[in-house]
């Protein structure tokens, strides 16, 4: 009962029943779609400036958006129960692909991330971002919740196996995101608070072990840089000093679109990919940052609301995990560029240039839309 009440109160939930049914038939969530389109459009403007006013780059990114939105649309058509039934098999396949990457992957930028099959090149770690919440939710949704210790441990294993494989590539950013999406499922499944606190304690113990035995030199450097960027001004500290300068010099109102000198002067490395928020902050100021965060927040609220209105535990957990992962993207990216989190390769969703990660991101929103439209069909 509570659920259907919520549907009625939803903003943009459709006042005209005709319109509502059209969106339903297309399996699209109009509120979510509207927010995504606004950020995508805004992102293209920022990208145009960050890429040194390259129409070519914007066109390419526009093409990626078309592909990504199309992918989202198709994913939204899949029946949620079918997703649930298939997820264990897809998970096993995903893990096998990750193993294949470690042994026969293509090396790019010092890390093995790509797998070539025929003429087709792709990153299994990206696909894992989608599979992980589905697989963990599949496992947890068939157990009694809140989960007991044995279930918690198995869920952890499900989350950590792919994460470790991805970390080995090495790709710390994606590994964290993948592990996080599994852990979020656990959290939404009602993981006891004492486990959450215990996990925090474990992490504190694990950190030094990771530092001395697991982390690569370049990963260590990134962490050190966080505490003292000035220690290596021209080396690993360069990015962060330049991005902080770009952000800070933007002030409240910003220097204006296309007026940011930091990226135009090529001071800001990766200005159109991971560090694009610095360009936005420089040109649109704090107001631009807040506006962007506001739109992200609306997406997060909408995602959680979809989860709360979902009919099955599986759908709830998936919606919660996908939304939370999206949140981690935003948090980690904006945190690292502004110098409060270590630099890991996490793009700013919908704004950073890039094809593969955009497509997986939008496919995630496709799953959300499938969940959103399915539960309403049931509500009728």
């Amino acid at each position, binding site marked *: 009962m509570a659920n259907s009440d919520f549907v009625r109160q939803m903003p943009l939930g459709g006042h005209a029943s005709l319109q509502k049914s059209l969106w339903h038939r297309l399996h699209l969530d109009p509120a979510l779609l509207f927010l995504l389109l606004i950020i995508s459009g805004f992102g293209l403007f920022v990208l145009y400036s960050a890429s040194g006013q390259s129409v070519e780059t914007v066109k390419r990114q526009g093409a990626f958006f078309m592909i990504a939105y199309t992918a989202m649309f198709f994913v939204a058509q899949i029946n949620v129960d079918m997703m649930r039934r298939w997820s264990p098999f897809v998970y096993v396949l995903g893990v096998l692909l990750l193993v294949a990457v470690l042994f026969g992957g293509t090396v790019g930028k010092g890390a093995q991330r790509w797998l070539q099959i025929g003429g087709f090149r792709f990153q299994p770690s990206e696909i894992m971002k989608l599979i992980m919440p589905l697989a963990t939710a599949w496992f947890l949704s068939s157990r009694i919740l809140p989960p007991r210790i044995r279930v918690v441990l198995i869920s952890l294993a499900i989350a950590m196996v792919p994460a470790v494989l991805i970390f080995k590539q090495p790709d710390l950013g994606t590994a964290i995101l993948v592990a996080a999406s599994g852990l979020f499922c656990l959290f939404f499944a009602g993981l006891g608070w004492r486990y959450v606190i215990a996990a925090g304690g474990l992490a504190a113990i694990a950190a030094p072990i990771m530092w001395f035995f697991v982390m690569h030199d370049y990963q260590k450097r990134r962490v050190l840089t966080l505490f003292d960027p000035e220690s290596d001004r021209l080396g690993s500290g360069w990015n962060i000093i330049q991005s902080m300068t770009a952000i800070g010099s933007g002030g409240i109102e910003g220097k204006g679109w296309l007026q940011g000198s930091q990226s135009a*002067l090529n001071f800001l490395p990766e200005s159109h990919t991971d560090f694009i928020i610095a360009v936005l902050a420089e040109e649109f100021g704090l107001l631009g940052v807040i506006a962007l965060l506001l739109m992200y927040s609306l997406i997060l609220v909408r995602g959680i609301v979809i989860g709360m209105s979902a009919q099955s535990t599986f759908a709830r957990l998936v919606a919660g995990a996908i939304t939370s992962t999206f949140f981690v993207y935003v948090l980690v990216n904006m945190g690292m560029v*502004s110098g409060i989190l270590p630099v890991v390769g996490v793009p700013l969703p919908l704004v950073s240039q890039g094809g593969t990660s955009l497509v997986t991101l939008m496919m995630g929103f496709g799953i959300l839309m499938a969940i959103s439209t399915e539960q309403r069909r049931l509500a009728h």
Partner: protein
Amino acid sequence: MWQHDRRYMKDPIAEASLFQGRAFTSLLIMAICFVVIIGRYFYLQVIQYQRYQTESDKNRVHVQSVPPKRGLIFDRKGRLLAENISAQSLVLVSERIPDMQSTIEQLQGLLGLSDEDVETFKVRLSRHRPFEEVPIKVGLSEEEMAKVAVELHNLPGVEIRAQLVRHYPYDDMFAHVIGYVGRINEREQQNLDEENYAGTYNIGKLGIERYYESQLHGTVGAQNVETDVRGKILRVLDQIDPIPGKDLTLNLDLDIQKAAFDALDGRRGSAIAIDTRTGGVLAIVSTPSYDSNLFVNGISSKNYSALRDSPDLPLFNRSLQGQYPPASTVKPILGLAGLHFGTITPQTTVRDPGWYQLPNDTRFYRDWKREGHAARINVADAIIQSCDVFFYDLSYKLGIDKIHDFMASFGYGEPTGVDLTSERGGLLPSKDWKLRTYNQPWFPGETLNIGIGQGYMLATPMQMASAVSALANNGEWIQPRVLQKMDDFTPMPKRRKTFEVSQSNWAVVEEAMRDVIHGQRGTARALARQSAYEIAGKTGTAQVVGIAQGEKYDSKALASRQRDHALFVGFAPADAPRIAVAVVIENVEHSSESASVAKKMMDTYLLDKNGELINFAALDGIDG
């Protein structure tokens, strides 16, 4: 009962409310995190705004490339042939110029820049890197400096920069061998190491400058500089010094080069001198020449089209690219081939009525001397008097295959591989070549033409010089080399034996070559007058146009550019050779013209200030 269910069975309603609790918690956590993020951006953008604004606008730390100093080029006696001089340039940084058009107009008024200068600048501007300084005028005079300096404060983005600019003190004398540096063009840009060339505008385009580009260039350095908003460098924070390019010492000798250059006196031709013992190129001149300095800062299109369109082709490097019939200069080598293969002996004579006919052929092959040289003539006299009939007969008997192989061993038919750019290989015909090129068999009559270095055969002056140097060395061919040493590196030239010719056969040919100059009937006997040493050599006149059967060569009737080329190859001193020389002068008919150029080059190398032969044996003794 209900409690029991709660524990052991799934309870959808309980799970849903559990999720709702977690959902609100997660939204709360997200909100807190976003507040922290906004706090961080607030801190950077509001509280620390002044600091970062200053960082961004006033104290931009640049990593600036420091281009390496280009290596210098010296002649064998340490005289500078290419140096770097400091020049003041006017540079523009378009990103700092509010109105480019008016700035250009202002500068045009100040300096009287031509429209062409402006066009060149705009082309450069269109492909500059962001915030790169693009020169609009290189080499400002004192007066121009003063004019600009006064106005500089009104011209944001305009700077005067001191740069090292390549300079060639001998203008046109070494243009074809040293070459020149010029602006890096787009094609070169794609092939070079961008990092190492950051801050470098010029690259070797031709000759030594191009061949040894990677050694001359050096390795780029870097410095971190603090600049103000206008890009003016406030201070240098730290610097990685560039590694300067290597200095080159060449085998070239300024004096011989000058002697050859002056003796050629702007006529179309080439003169090359080689150190017979090392293969070192002592002089290599192609005239008419051009001033290499014109190209360094970008040649104006007026100057360039004048050079390009001149009928005398000053841009054409005759020494390496000019392919001439070697004419009678091949006779000593062919005579040697005849003796070596036993086709003739020193005593074999041939009847010389002034023409030659193949068996069963009605065609007459003329001798340059209509009445013939003697009733019967032997190989030595045939070389000395340059008898064509003897060599028609000899080449017919040798056949093209033997001629080809023997000549090829002296370096004909392929580039010598000298350390210079755009060398051509001439043409040494063979049966194979004829079949490939014309899809025709070889005709015996064609062999006769090869016997006098005409017909299909072509050679560059460089090939002729290295071949005659091999003659001087009793058959050891040494690859010619312009570079003598680079820092402590001394290149070892390739050497190869031509044919194992017996000493007595060598003696016949060398004696005959000596008598070309010093004999009673030698074709270059004029050189023998007042010579402090003995020269061995061979003259040649190369036909430019074919003379039809029965027609007489009439120089008056021929246009000046159809007259014969004059050739001379030789070495000296004849008994202990030190220097080999090849000279080609186009359309001057008389081989004595070339011979006299060669003589002047030899004199410069072999004679001391008092006009006496330098005692090289003694010098070698000192050298150890």
